[in-house]
């Protein structure tokens, strides 16, 4: 199993670099600027790609946490923790690039639009999840509470996605736009978005695999420490 997965694991950083270079070329050189927003619209490609990956990561937290609660599988617990941490990283990217894009387009850095507000709620829920995991250490009960929080937090993701239709906020729905002048009209823009999404998906997978490996060593070390402690006394 380990020998079969190793070539893919070694290849992942290189594939990520290649996809990133292609994405950067498409975003900054090949794709045209949007007519109304100008050059600043190019923030969109990584902003949206990061949001997609954060949402996918939190969905995986919920699935892995359910598996951990049902079967007590430590690998599922490690998968949940790694996805939560990298998902938080990508949500931070969304929350930082959003205001930088909003300032020249909306004239304000931030507004309490439903989608923006619920994204902050999502970030806060998983910050609490990670704090619980960190404070709990190897405590079994706290690990289970954290798993429940990981599942509840993921319920915010579909709400964020449908918030544009449910409540009329000012956040643009570029992908769902039906107006003739709105959305991604040029095919290169769509390719740039897809390649950016792919590059961020590869980066996400690589970071999750690194974080899982780190957690595995940490768990092993905790076990060895427990075994070593009576011998030292």
């Amino acid at each position, binding site marked *: 199993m380990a020998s079969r997965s190793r070539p893919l694991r070694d290849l992942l950083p290189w594939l990520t670099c290649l996809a990133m270079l292609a994405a950067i070329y498409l975003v900054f050189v090949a794709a045209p600027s949007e007519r109304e927003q100008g050059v*600043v619209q190019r923030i969109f490609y990584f*902003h949206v790609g990061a949001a997609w990956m954060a949402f996918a990561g939190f969905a995986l937290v919920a699935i892995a946490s359910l598996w951990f609660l049902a079967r007590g599988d430590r690998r599922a617990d490690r998968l949940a923790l790694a996805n939560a941490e990298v998902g938080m990283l990508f949500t931070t*990217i969304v929350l930082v690039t959003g205001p930088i894009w909003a*300032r020249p387009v909306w004239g304000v850095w931030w507004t309490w639009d439903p989608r923006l507000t619920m994204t902050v709620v999502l970030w806060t829920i998983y910050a609490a999840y990670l704090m619980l995991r960190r404070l709990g250490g190897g405590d079994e009960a706290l690990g289970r509470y954290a798993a429940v929080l990981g599942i509840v937090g993921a319920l915010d993701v579909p709400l964020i996605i449908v918030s544009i239709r449910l409540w009329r906020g000012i956040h643009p729905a570029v992908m769902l736009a039906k107006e003739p002048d709105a959305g991604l009209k040029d095919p290169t823009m769509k390719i740039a978005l897809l390649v950016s999404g792919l590059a961020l998906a590869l980066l996400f997978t690589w970071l999750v695999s690194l974080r899982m490996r*780190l957690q595995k060593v940490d768990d092993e070390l905790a076990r060895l420490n427990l075994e*070593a402690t009576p011998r030292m006394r």
Partner: protein
Amino acid sequence: MNGLDFLAAAYSAIWLIIFAYLLSLWRRSARLERELDELRRGEQPSTRAG
């Protein structure tokens, strides 16, 4: 600030966040390696946080 400044700020922030996370992973990995070495030498590791 013009559009190009905002674009540069956004992509600089993205790479800064990613590299800061990679650095934190590398530091945590180095700490675990050190603790493993201490354990192999039969010493009690100094810290067990995170």
